[in-house]
């Protein structure tokens, strides 16, 4: 298993992202090699690191910290980074599940259910992309 998949699987299984030493130990790799791989993955935006560290903040579509976007698949909750990533988590895990969040304006709960890769019913809500695609990674937390 490569470093990216190890990070994803650990986050899915435990709810927390592995540190560099944990990934090195888990995969039998050198710490420096794993550090370099974390940086490469961050440069390609497969993962996002907390600024100035090698601590994983996001491993798209998953978040390593609690967020307002909770994807539930097979009875397990996973934090996602946004509504795109919430639905992406369902897609990544087989295409059946739900995403819960709250309207940023009124704080009412909103939910989207997906069954066998089809959106179920006519869920309430509209998606808002505030940032143009060319600037998504200028401030990924705001995006």
């Amino acid at each position, binding site marked *: 298993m490569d470093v990216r998949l190890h990070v994803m699987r650990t986050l899915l299984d435990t709810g927390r992202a592995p540190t560099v030493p944990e990934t090195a130990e888990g995969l039998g790799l050198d710490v420096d090699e794993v550090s370099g791989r974390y940086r490469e993955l961050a440069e390609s935006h497969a993962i996002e690191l907390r600024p100035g560290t090698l601590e994983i903040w996001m491993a798209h579509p998953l978040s390593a910290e609690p967020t307002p976007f909770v994807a539930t698949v097979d009875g397990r909750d996973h934090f996602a980074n946004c509504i795109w990533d919430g639905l992406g988590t369902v*897609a*990544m895990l087989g295409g059946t599940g739900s995403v819960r969040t709250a309207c*940023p304006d009124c704080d009412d709960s909103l939910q989207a259910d997906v069954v066998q890769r089809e959106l179920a019913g006519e869920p309430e809500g509209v*998606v808002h992309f505030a940032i143009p695609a060319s600037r998504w990674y200028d401030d990924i937390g705001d995006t």
Partner: protein
Amino acid sequence: MQLFRSEEHVRRWCEERGREPGAVFGLDRMWSLADAWYHDRLSEDFRRRTPDEAEALFDSIGLTGDAWRLSR
């Protein structure tokens, strides 16, 4: 990328923050994008799309215009 109750809620939220509204669309389109973008993320063969491939995907599900161009 957030989910609002309606376009009216988007407009009010943006106004209160002095921000211009961005792209607004339905959950059906969001699901199409999320599924296409992430369904293979746990595959060993996963490869990130090039900017041109990503823009082609956006176009294919009707996400067009300057907001969906990856080059500045």
